Structure formats: C-alpha cells, structure tokens
C-alpha cells in the first residue's frame, strides 16, 4: 500500500495530476448547479413582478 502511494518516487506528480483531474472536473460540474438556481429564481422573480401588476390591453395598428 505505501509502495502504491509512493508511486516509485513520483507520488507528488502522479497524485497531483489525479487530484487536478478530479478537482477541475468537479468544479466544472458544480458550477452549473449554482447558475441553474440563479436562473430559476430570476425567472420566478420576473413572474412574480409581472403577476403583481394588472395587464392592460394591448395596442394595435389601425
């Protein structure tokens, strides 16, 4: 096991690479979740604002 961890002396390079791999991909996967929540709450806010106001009639061409 310790031999496995040591990676023949290259532990730093190999494990950092693996960590970077997972780290960057995890961050990339989590970022949209926050964005999604923001977009949805924005849409809801807009809906609420619109609902709070009466809808006057639409003007038209002659």
């Amino acid at each position, binding site marked *: 096991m310790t031999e*496995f961890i040591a*990676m023949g*002396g290259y532990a730093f*390079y190999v494990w950092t690479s693996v960590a*970077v791999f997972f780290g960057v*991909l995890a961050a*990339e996967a989590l*970022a949209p979740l926050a964005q999604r929540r923001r977009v949805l709450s924005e849409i809801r806010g807009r809906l609420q604002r619109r609902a709070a106001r009466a809808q006057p009639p639409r003007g038209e061409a002659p």
Partner: protein
Amino acid sequence: MNILLLWFHKLGSPPTFYRLAGLLLPWCYGIGLVLGLVALYGGLVLAPRDYQQGDAYRIIFVHVPTAWMSLFAYAFMAANAFIALVWHIKLSEILAIASAPIGAAFTLIALVTGALWGKPMWGTWWTWDARLTSELVLLFLYLGVIGLNAAIEDRRQAARAAGFLALVGIVNLPIVHFSVNWWNTLHQGSTVRLMGPSKIDAAMVWPLLLMALATHIWFFGSVLMRARIALLQLEGGKDWVRRVALDEGAGND
C-alpha cells in the same frame, strides 16, 4: 446533412430537448464517473510499471484522455457553431456555447498534468515547443469564446458572435494535433493507435481507452446540463419554462 437537420428538427423543440436532456443527464454523469474510476484503478493499480519512465508514466491515464477531449470538445463546438450560423438553429447555438466551459476545463487539466509529467521527464515544467504552445493557445481560444459570450447582453446574438469566433479559431486544431509531426519537439508523437498495432502494452491500453470513453460520456453530461440552463435563460418567457421554474422552485428552495 439532411439526416442531421431532421434529427435537430425533432430534438430541436426546446421543451422536448429539455425533458430528454434531463433524463439522460444523470446517466451520463453516473456512467462517466463509474467508468472513470474503473479506468483509473486499471491504470494506477493493474497496469505494469513502464520500464523507461517508472510510475510517472501513469499520468498518461489522465493526461492523454483529457488532451484528446480538449480537441474533441473544440471540434464539437465548432461544428455546432457552423450549423448554428448557417441554418440558424437555436439548439446548435446552445450546444456550441455549452461545450466551451467543459472544453476549457479539459484543456486546463491537459496543460497542468502535462506540466506535472514534464517536470520528472524533461526536467522542466514548461518549454515553448509547438504542441505545448498551441495547446495553451487553445485554452485562450476557449476563454475568448466564453468571454465574448458573456460580454454580449442579447443571448442569441452572444451565441452567434462567440460561435463565429470559435469557427475562426479552428485553424489551431490541426496545429495542435500535427505539431509533433511538423516540428521536432520534446513532446511524444502518436503512440496509441485504434487501427493497427499500438506501440504500448495492452494492459496499459485498455484503461487509457476506457478513460477516454468515460471523459466523452462525462463531456456530454456536462454539455446537456449547461444546454438545459441556457434553454431556460433563452426561453425565459415561455409557458414551459414558467412551469419548470414554479415546479422546481417549490422543490429546491
């Protein structure tokens, strides 16, 4: 092209795409993750030590698949951008822009792991050889696409402008890929072949290919995720989005 157009037309209806993507999404992330872990086990534990590079070569299992993905994602983005610009298909605009962040992420990983591999092998983190430089330029191109898309207010106009830039930047792809043949560089030439005999041990090849598969599947998961959000943004006023917003609003927060 006709089949492709038909396919887009069917899937192109935003609510359909949104629902379908929502169904596929967990599977993409799940399968991608499982295959990736298996491949990593194969690569880090099962594969034999390289007689030249020792255990350092094991970086190959993250470096090479992500490097391939950095190119694949760009090609996918440019192809979608082309379709979007020529046929004005909304879904292609969205797919093109959605693949930029994940492509940039893969490029970043390839650069960092390459540097981490280069230190023990070449004795330096970084040199200015053709492949390394062109891969760095690829990262800048991705960032340019993302930046341009973010800088324009109108979503569709932003997608078209960014897609246009992606198309202009596509000249860089062949440079990245063929740089090792065109210029003699420090970087390794092609060692893995799908057709014909590979130059390396089979016990090393299967984890590599499996990891490549896993990253592809993960890529599509991420693209679908981002495309869904972009659709919500783009169709903000439509009824189906309203329903989605109200449904998920009750559940989430």
